[in-house]
C-alpha cells in the first residue's frame, strides 16, 4: 500500500497516458467523424490532466476551455452541418496507407532514438519558479574589497501558476501576445469571408425578401466600391 501511495503520480501517468494513446488511435481508426471527434475530446482532456501533473495548471485550464470547449464544438458543428449519412461507404483509408504507416514508423523510431540518448540541458530543480512572478531590477552590490558592481538581479515572489503566466504574458511577451490577438482577428475575418455563401439562381426564387434586399444592397456597395 505504501509503495502504491509513493508511486501514485507514476500510476496516474501510466493510466492517463494509456487512455490518451488509445483514444488517439481510435480517432484515426473510427469511420464516423462524430465518433472521431468524441475520442478527440477524450484525448484533449487526458492531455490537460498531464499538463496539470507537470505543474502547468494555467495551460491545462486553457486546454480544457479552448480545445475541449471551443474547437470541439466547431468540429462537431461542421460534422453535423455536412450530412454524415451521405458519406461514402467506401474504404476510409487512402490507397497510400502502407506508405503512410511506414513514414509514421520511421518518424517514431527517429523520435524514440532522440529521447533515449539525447543529452538534454541540465535539469533545474526549482518548481517554485513555475509559480512565481519574476521582477527584474538593477542592483549595486559591494564586494568585500570595496569594489561596487551593478548588474541585473531577478527576484521571485511566490504567487500561483496562472498569475505567473499572466504576468509573463503581459510583460516579457507583450508583443507576441498582441500579434496573437491580431492573428485571431485575421483568422475570424478569413473564416467568415471563406465560409460566406453567394446566393445561386435556384435559391433566389425561394429566398425570403429580406435576404434578397441584403444581397441587392451588397451588390450596390460593391459597384460603388469598384467604380
Amino acid at each position: 500500500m505504501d509503495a502504491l501511495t509513493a508511486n501514485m503520480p507514476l500510476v496516474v501517468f501510466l493510466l492517463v497516458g494509456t487512455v490518451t494513446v488509445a483514444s488517439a488511435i481510435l480517432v484515426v481508426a473510427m469511420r464516423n467523424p462524430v465518433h472521431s471527434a468524441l475520442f478527440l475530446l477524450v484525448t484533449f482532456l487526458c492531455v490537460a490532466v498531464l499538463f496539470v501533473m507537470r505543474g502547468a495548471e494555467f495551460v491545462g485550464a486553457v486546454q480544457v476551455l479552448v480545445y475541449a470547449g471551443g474547437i470541439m464544438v466547431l468540429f462537431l458543428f461542421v460534422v453535423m452541418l455536412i450530412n454524415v449519412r451521405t458519406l461514402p461507404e467506401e474504404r476510409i483509408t487512402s490507397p497510400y496507407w502502407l506508405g503512410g504507416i511506414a513514414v509514421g514508423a520511421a518518424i517514431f523510431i527517429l523520435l524514440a532514438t532522440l529521447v533515449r540518448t539525447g543529452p538534454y540541458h541540465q535539469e533545474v530543480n526549482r518548481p517554485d519558479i513555475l509559480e512565481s512572478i519574476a521582477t527584474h531590477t538593477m542592483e549595486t552590490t559591494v564586494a568585500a574589497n570595496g569594489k561596487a558592481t551593478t548588474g541585473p538581479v531577478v527576484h521571485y515572489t511566490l504567487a500561483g501558476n496562472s498569475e505567473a503566466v499572466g504576468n509573463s504574458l503581459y510583460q516579457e511577451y507583450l508583443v507576441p501576445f498582441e500579434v496573437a490577438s491580431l492573428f485571431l482577428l485575421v483568422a475570424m475575418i478569413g473564416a467568415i469571408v471563406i465560409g460566406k455563401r453567394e446566393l445561386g439562381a435556384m435559391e433566389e426564387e425561394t429566398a425570403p425578401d429580406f435576404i434578397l434586399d441584403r444581397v441587392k444592397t451588397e451588390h450596390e456597395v460593391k459597384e460603388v466600391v469598384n467604380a
Partner: protein
Amino acid sequence: MPSTQAYLMLAATLFTVGLIGVVVRRNMITVLMCIELMLNAVNLNLVAFSSRLSSLEGQIFSVFIITIAAGEAAVGLAIIIQLYRIRATVNIDEVRELHG
C-alpha cells in the same frame, strides 16, 4: 513524478499517431482532427521541458500554440464547408486538382 523521458515518449507516440492519421485518412475533417493531435503532442513536449528546466517559457509558448490551433481549425473548417458546397464531397482524394 514521471520522468521527462516518459513524457517525451508519450508525446512522440501521439505525434506519430496524428501523422499517420493525416497521411492515411481520406475524410478531410478527420485529417484536421489529426493535425490538432500533432499540435497537442508538441504542447506536451513544451510543458514537460518547462518543468524540467523550471522556466515559464515553455508554458507560454504552448498558450500561443493553442491560439494558433484555434485559428487554424476555424479557417480549415470554413474551407471544408465551402469545398463541400462546391464539390459535395469531403473525400480528400477527390479534390486534388487545384483548378476550379
